[in-house]
């Protein structure tokens, strides 16, 4: 049965029908009709303090639930402020539905107040976008947007709704399903190809699984782990793949890449069969395999465009990872590979290198030692949201996430989960993403780890945490530097340091106090345990300001 309601109300009803409980946004004139209809809806609106953070928060929620999450902004600057968040979600294949207000239809193209061509501007970063011209199509378009965002290779979908369209009355009925003749993602893998994969694994002496973020999207962690265990295949991961398998799993060797550890990088340069699962062979990740002509590569991904894009592939398989790996698990046999696993194990265990300069002259804490102290206190149910820069690498290499963190259909993120802006490397991601993660998984301990540079790109969100009672913990690694850039200047520019000094930064604990948030300082390792305990004991937002030496490295 259809009924007559305005488009603004229809939008709210569509979101309710999609099971959306919380949305992140920032209102403005052009989106006011929509906000007006939020009154009385069960959907909770979380007011962020900058539109980009609405996008990041939605991204945090989407990573945890595995389903599209929603952010809202107004026309013009509200919409353009979202672009970085849209691009961040796009690069990491995160399903986000973005709703923006637009100036009235008859004013479009006249450069009126707060007009921006957001569908045009965001086009390189969206999976798809709609500028709504026909009010009657709204229910169908929203249904399509959710379907497109969440299916196939997930990604952001933008819906731009002109002011006058929001006020029009339509016959509302939310479609149960939609069909797009031009978009039909392929889920099942080609049986013949999968057979070839099984044979290649059987023949290999030194097989290796490289786990990427696509395994989270496909909820394929569990089945990947089973395959690795059955055939005794060591697992390494990209930054996006961290926590797809418990970090203490005997087959897990660590994160690859220019910032990764020895064992995984040796593994990738010495393996005879590389099985890429939902990894897009990013430039920072796989420098080590560029020149290996003898290497056999299996690449399984839902996006055919990723296969063969950055690396020649011997056996391509297009399909949904969970479906394909389930197909594979039915024909794969047990295997030894004992020497290979043992060899990598020894490499991993003997890798005593830490990032750090740690000697008497060291100022502050050794980041790895500090993260290890956090590991010891961390509950199994947690989300670690790392920002971008040295803090990200320190966390990625040292965090230990226990628990059965292999997402399934029912529960995408059980146990410890690591999230970060992997592809785009967007500073200021960790806190809003943590806000989104906490909103989706309130029972988990959610901790954002950032630097003093990145924190100052998101410190306004402390207000959001307080206002909406979102219990996120924040660890700020402070070295009064843009540490990663400083490191690049030290290594590549003869230590000519320029524009990396953060003098003028506030005392972050005092800043937090101004928001009514408690916190503590960690100036050396002796203070770390108590400070971390205090932080984890708190049932309110809490901030730790951790001192790190200014010369600390992130490249091993």
């Amino acid at each position, binding site marked *: 049965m259809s009924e007559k309601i305005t488009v603004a109300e229809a939008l709210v009803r569509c979101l309710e029908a999609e099971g959306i409980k919380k949305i992140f946004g920032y209102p403005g004139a052009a989106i006011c009709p929509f906000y007006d209809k939020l009154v009385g809806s069960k959907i909770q609106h979380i007011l962020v303090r900058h539109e980009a953070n609405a996008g990041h928060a939605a991204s945090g929620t989407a990573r945890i639930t595995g389903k599209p999450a929603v952010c809202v902004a107004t026309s013009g600057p509200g919409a353009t402020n979202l672009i970085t968040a849209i691009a961040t979600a796009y690069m990491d294949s995160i399903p986000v539905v973005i709703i923006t207000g637009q100036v009235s239809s008859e004013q479009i193209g006249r450069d009126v107040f707060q007009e921006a061509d957001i569908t045009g501007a965001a086009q390189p970063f969206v999976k*798809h976008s709609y500028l709504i011209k026909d009010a009657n199509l709204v229910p169908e378009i929203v249904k399509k947007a959710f379907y497109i965002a969440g299916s196939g290779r997930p990604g952001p979908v933008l819906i731009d709704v002109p002011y006058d369209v929001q006020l029009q009355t339509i016959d509302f009925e939310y479609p149960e399903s939609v069909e797009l003749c031009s978009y039909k993602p392929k889920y099942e893998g080609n049986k013949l190809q999968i057979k070839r994969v099984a044979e290649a694994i059987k023949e290999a002496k030194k097989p290796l699984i490289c786990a990427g973020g696509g395994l989270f999207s496909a909820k394929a962690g569990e089945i990947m782990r089973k395959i690795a265990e059955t055939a005794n295949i060591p697992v390494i991961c990209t930054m996006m793949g961290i926590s797809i398998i418990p970090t203490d799993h005997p087959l897990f060797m660590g994160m690859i890449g220019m910032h990764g550890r020895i064992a995984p990088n040796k593994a990738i340069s010495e393996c005879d069969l590389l099985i890429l699962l939902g990894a897009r062979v990013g430039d920072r990740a796989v420098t080590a395999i560029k020149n290996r002509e003898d290497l056999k590569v299996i690449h399984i991904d839902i996006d*055919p465009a990723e296969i063969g894009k950055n690396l020649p592939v011997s056996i391509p398989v297009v399909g949904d990872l969970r479906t394909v790996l389930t197909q594979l698990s039915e024909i794969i046999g047990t295997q030894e590979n004992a020497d290979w696993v043992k060899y990598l194990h020894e490499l991993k265990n003997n890798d005593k290198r830490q990032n750090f300069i740690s000697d008497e002259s060291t100022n502050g804490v050794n980041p790895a030692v500090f993260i290890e102290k956090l590991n010891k206190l961390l509950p199994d149910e947690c989300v670690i949201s790392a920002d971008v820069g040295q803090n990200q690498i320190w966390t990625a290499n040292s965090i230990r996430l226990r628990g059965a963190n292999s997402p399934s259909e029912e529960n995408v993120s059980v146990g410890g989960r690591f999230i970060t802006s992997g592809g785009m490397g967007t500073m200021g991601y960790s806190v809003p993403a943590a806000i989104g993660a906490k909103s989706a998984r309130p029972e988990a301990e959610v901790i954002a780890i950032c630097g003093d540079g990145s924190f100052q790109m998101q410190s306004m969100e402390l207000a959001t945490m307080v206002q909406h009672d979102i219990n996120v913990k924040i660890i700020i690694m402070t070295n009064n530097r843009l540490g990663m850039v400083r490191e690049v200047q030290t290594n590549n520019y003869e230590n000519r340091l320029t524009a990396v000094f953060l003098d003028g930064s506030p005392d972050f604990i005092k800043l937090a106090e101004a928001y009514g948030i408690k916190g503590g300082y960690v100036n050396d390792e002796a203070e770390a345990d108590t400070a971390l305990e205090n932080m984890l004991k708190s049932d309110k937002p809490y901030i730790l300001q951790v001192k790190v030496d200014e010369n600390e490295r992130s490249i091993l």
Partner: protein
Amino acid sequence: MKHTISILVENNAGVLARISGLFARRGYNIHSLAVGVTDNEKISRITIVAEGSDYTLEQIEKQLNKLIDVIKVRSLSADKLLARELVLVKVACKPVQRTELIDIAEIMAAKISDVSPDSMTLELSGNQNVLTTFEELLSPYEIIEIVRTGTVALQKGSSGIRV
């Protein structure tokens, strides 16, 4: 190497911007582009001639396929290519020169589409080489303006690209 690519798309607003944007940001060069509606008014057919290696062509096809509005992408093979362009040339022409231009038109099987006391407009469709020859033949005359479409193309034989 030049490739001719046929794309069937949903006839939605902005679809051309999505496609040309994709070519621009991924660094694929477009030589020519032609768009027109098909026998199904909801579907348009785009013909793009692009330059690039086989790797580039493969990437173009895959990236185009990712666009939601794109229904089908086919690269047309060079040996079965039936490709046409259309050119309109307006030449300054006094009445005494008309016979010369009519001769050229006849030789090239071009049409005379418009005549005025001071000009003559000739129209020719054909493949790129024919059009280039035609333009060369007209080059001794004063060309007032010239307009040329992008290539439209299909494959010879009975098979076709349909939804």
